[in-house]
């Protein structure tokens, strides 16, 4: 048919890979934003900002919220949301702290276990209890916080002598902070899972069109369930990194992590409506916010100025990468 012959090549040339290209655009513009931040920073803080030391520092700082944001990406891809990550992180680190006497391994298991457990409760309420994610995770937002305070009796537990856990705070692998290494590893794994496995495809499908996914034979419930468990697992990992860096397990950490994580995911091009997800975007989003925070502190501006500036920078950043809806 002439249409085809005429058309195919023309379109082929003019736009290869429409979908990747589009969400790609997102990612590229974010790269632009990051570069811009680096340049601006280098100008404003010539000797402190653009040093390999500080860059590694930023990477380390990004790691905690970063790992959480990666998990959040899966949740949001299914058009869900997880408000409980911050308090879950506190609960998980406290849970680890309770086992601190039995050594690093138990700490790690405790933190991961608590993360998965609480994530599983979210998952159950949402996938089987049919509670809207916002409300279910809001309930967990307050429950997990209470749980952490209760388990810890409101006292931080020092884990100073858990060498292995603390290694995540001060250790290095080939000069790269170990926390950052974990973050990068989680990111890479998540990328493969989301972009190169049927599971990842199903996750996005469920977010894009639940009914269509179901008719195509996707086990919607199981997928929805799984993403909140993944989120919980990532929170557990983040809790380990955080405790390692703090050398203590405290019930009062993790405030506003949910906002930071969701913001990173959204600015990274994953649609809150679901159906589109970008791990690379999330990674860059996390870095963007970490750079903004780092730069503002380096400049030692007054709080109020800092907050206003932060807001303006965020706006500028997204205006640079103007998004339809």
């Amino acid at each position, binding site marked *: *048919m*002439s*249409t*085809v012959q*005429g*058309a*195919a090549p*023309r*379109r*082929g040339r*003019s*736009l*290869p*890979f*429409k*979908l*990747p290209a*589009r969400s790609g655009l997102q990612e590229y513009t974010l790269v632009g934003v990051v570069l811009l931040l680096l340049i601006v920073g280098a100008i404003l803080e010539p000797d402190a900002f653009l040093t390999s030391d500080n860059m590694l520092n930023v990477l380390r700082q990004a790691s905690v919220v970063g790992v959480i944001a990666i998990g959040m990406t899966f949740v949001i891809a299914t058009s869900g949301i997880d408000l409980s990550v911050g308090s879950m992180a506190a609960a998980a680190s406290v849970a680890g702290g309770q086992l601190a006497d039995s050594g690093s391994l138990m700490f790690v298991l405790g933190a991961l276990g608590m993360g998965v457990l609480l994530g599983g409760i979210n998952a159950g309420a949402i996938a089987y209890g049919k509670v809207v994610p916002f409300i279910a995770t809001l309930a967990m937002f307050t429950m997990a916080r209470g749980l952490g305070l209760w388990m810890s009796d409101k006292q931080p537990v020092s884990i100073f002598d858990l060498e292995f856990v603390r290694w995540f705070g001060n250790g290095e692998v080939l000069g790269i902070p170990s926390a950052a290494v974990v973050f990068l590893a989680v990111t890479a794994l998540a990328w*493969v899972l989301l*972009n*190169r*496995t*049927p*599971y990842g*495809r*199903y996750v996005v*499908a469920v977010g*894009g*069109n639940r*009914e*269509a*996914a*179901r*008719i*195509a*034979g*996707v*086990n919607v419930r199981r997928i929805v369930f799984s993403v909140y468990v993944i989120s919980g697992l990532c929170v557990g990992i983040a809790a380990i990194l955080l405790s390692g860096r703090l050398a203590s397990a405290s019930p009062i950490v993790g405030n506003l992590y949910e906002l930071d994580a969701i913001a990173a995911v959204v600015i990274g091009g994953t649609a809150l409506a679901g*159906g*589109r997800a970008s791990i690379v975007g999330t990674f860059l989003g996390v870095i963007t916010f970490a750079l903004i925070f780092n730069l503002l502190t380096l400049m030692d501006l007054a709080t109020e100025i800092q907050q206003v500036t932060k807001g303006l920078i965020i706006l500028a950043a997204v205006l640079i990468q103007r998004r339809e809806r």
Partner: protein
Amino acid sequence: MSTATPILSVRGLVKHYPGAKALDGVDFDVQAGEVHCLLGPNGAGKSTLIKCVSGAVEPTSGQVLVDGEPLPTGTPSASLAHGVATIYQELDLVEDLRVYDSIFLGHEPRKLGGLLDRAQMKRRTRELLERLDHANIPVDARVGQLRPAAQQVVSIARALSHDVRLLIMDEPSAILDDNEVETLFGVVRRLKADGVGVVYISHRLDEVARIGDRVSVLSDGRTVATGLPADTPPDVLVEKMVGRKVEQLFPDRATASGGGADGAAAAPALELRGLARAPEVKPTSFAVAPGEVLGIGGLVGAGRTELLRLIYGLDKPDAGEVHVHGQRLKPANPRAAIRTGLGMAPEDRKSQGLLLDWSLARNVTLADLPRFAPRGGVLSINGERQAAAEQLRALKTVPDDADRIVRELSGGNQQKVVLARWLLRECKVLLLDEPTRGVDVGAKAEIYGVIANLAKAGLAVVVVSSEMPELIGLCTRILVMREGEIVAEVAGDEATELELLRHAVAPTDTAPVLEETA
């Protein structure tokens, strides 16, 4: 009539999309009081053309004149103000709104104080639905709960709610059965008499003769013929549309490999035993043999879609069993159904078939992903793309570039993507709900061919369609459904439209319908 200034005249209309020339300089006139049929293959640019007129899309260049005066482009409200009312191909309703709200959205009657005059809205809604013989659609139901067909009626009512000078209809009959189409035509004729100009887009050529005055043919964004008389013989029109003769629309009729049209003889590929779900489907039993194409006809709302949903396990049956090659299916479990070799192309491609923002490739492979993730469960993206492209080409999808976004495809081509998914996944039994809805003649022939080949290869195919000729031309056997039960079985080669229609409508209804159609 042709001397009067036309109600609508389109001059050198061009619309470029990133990577696609939808319109490439189209000229097009519509006179007052005429029904101007617009034909063209899938992706020809019909919808784009009328969207440019209705203001839904901004043309790249060119002019749209209504009553000789140029229309501000890209502003729907302006077009509406000029009395240009449009029924879009893809349902354009807000599912959450109630029927009367949807109909008056954007031009609500108001009481003083600017409050909605809901009484008037409801009253006029009833009148409109009355006019369309659908008084039965509850005016305060939410649109989202209505079936596609009922929704289509609502968008028609919505178009009529404006005082319309030019009525544009983009494949309104696609979701409707002959009954409803005839009712619609009745309304159109009345409007015509009132001097309203009508643009009528359809892929059902028989409708041209029934309602049309003049015909224009669009292909690949250009007008290849305009102002032809309505009695132009179909095969001429087809040739102009698809640029070639379609010698044979229907392939040789498939026959159950078990021998003879009698499916029961062979070990059935698909067998229903008293499958039921009140109120849509009464206990239903039938068997389909491998190599058989079973058609299910009936009026809109007869329960055909629901029946397929039950077989496939999308809804929970009240009673009954489904067996595939002797193996009983887990009820209400689509995954089990798929595993045992069932496949289904749903009726409503947008809400149930496609992920509109995904590439064609991803949409096609969704149901069969594990195949592309052999070692270590890692997907081979290229493998996916090639396999998908193959199927798309087989269905002559335009474009068949597997990386394009489905949303950017024309309606008919989107339909082909849904089919491609199930062709890709080799299944034993294929359930097709309105498989050729919105598909052009050329492509129809392709699809029929594909179906026949699948049957030859030993698949059992169940086709639900509201197009009687399709059923008659394609199927080995035809079951007719009415109010949720099978009321007749006719051998494909003996069936006639009249007979099927007689079974489809309740006996008491027969007379008036025949009058209408005669």
